[in-house]
């Protein structure tokens, strides 16, 4: 619809969203190996939530910087991408806090959803 590729960028979009999600899952699964109990779970949940959003934003910005077309001004694009990544910082923080709180809720109400207490 916007002439940005759509189907032809499906693979790279899948990696931008999917790879950070997989890394976040791997990071969160470390909670069983770390001491600290619920504190470690909360910190890892925050890191996984916030980190995945930031990583996705940085991956997208990096890909766009590396593939800027010749007819576009590189300096303007860099500035726009810098602003875009900065705009994702508060979003990542909110995501991290929300994820940590939901994980805390689930660990009290239904721990088997987190793979605990089966």
């Amino acid at each position: 619809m916007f002439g940005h590729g759509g189907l032809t960028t499906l693979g790279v979009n899948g990696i931008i969203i999917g790879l950070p999600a997989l890394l976040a899952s791997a990071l969160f699964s470390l909670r069983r190996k770390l001491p600290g109990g619920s504190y470690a779970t909360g910190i890892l949940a925050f890191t996984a939530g916030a980190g995945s959003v930031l990583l996705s934003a940085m991956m997208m910005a990096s890909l766009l910087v590396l593939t800027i077309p010749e007819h576009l001004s590189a300096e303007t694009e860099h500035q726009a991408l810098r602003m875009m990544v900065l705009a994702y910082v508060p979003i990542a923080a909110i995501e991290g806090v929300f994820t940590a709180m939901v994980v805390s809720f689930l660990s009290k109400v239904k721990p088997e959803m987190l793979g605990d207490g089966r």
Partner: protein
Amino acid sequence: MRKNPLAAWRTSLQIPCLFMLMMSFAFVRSLVLVPVIMAISALLFALSGMPVKEALKRLRLPLTLLFVMTVLIVMLDGTTVLVSAGPLTVRAEGLELSAVIWGRVLSILGVAMALYRTAGGWELAAGFRRCGVPGILVDMGMLTGRYIHVTAEEYSRMRIAMRLRGERRGYRTLRLPGTPVSLAGSLLVRGFERAERVWSAMKLRGYRGAVPYAGDRRPLNSHDMLMSLSVTASAAALVLLELCARGVV
């Protein structure tokens, strides 16, 4: 009885032909072709019989986001300034690009709504299966479409219950972050338990990885061929016209 020419068109042909048409709309970058694609889309939308109000209701949020985006494009894209009032600037290139984007979006969504209206539900699933889409993907799509409404109803019931228990509405709830968190958590827990129940029921009914959708098994007729050829020819003509407009052909 099917009198609607789109509804009478075999779904397993309708899906690839309309997708091809949507891709040809996406290929258009010339402003002069925008009325053409909008006319084709409007014709198909009118044939589907979908009320305009219902379509606008479903598309309210994406069109609002698109509006915000195109306002930025109009103000920032290009160098030819048409109107300037302080920080607000209307640029010619931005205006042209916005018109093309709006034309493409409305045309593609019009065709998508026509497909959804005429095929919809089981027939659409059967059509996708006949087109070779993996069964697991079709089943996931169908289950999502089925249970998203259930989740939305659960959410509104829980909000009513919270208000009856004294939750304050509006911005004041921002002081209580636990409220949306417990709401989201409860929805997750209920969804998880429902998913386990549905999965057990599906296994008991013999589910083996793909629901056997029956679909339209009647032989191809002249109406199917006519619709398929005319839509395919329209898509090809649009691509050719766009290449001519770009000076490639």
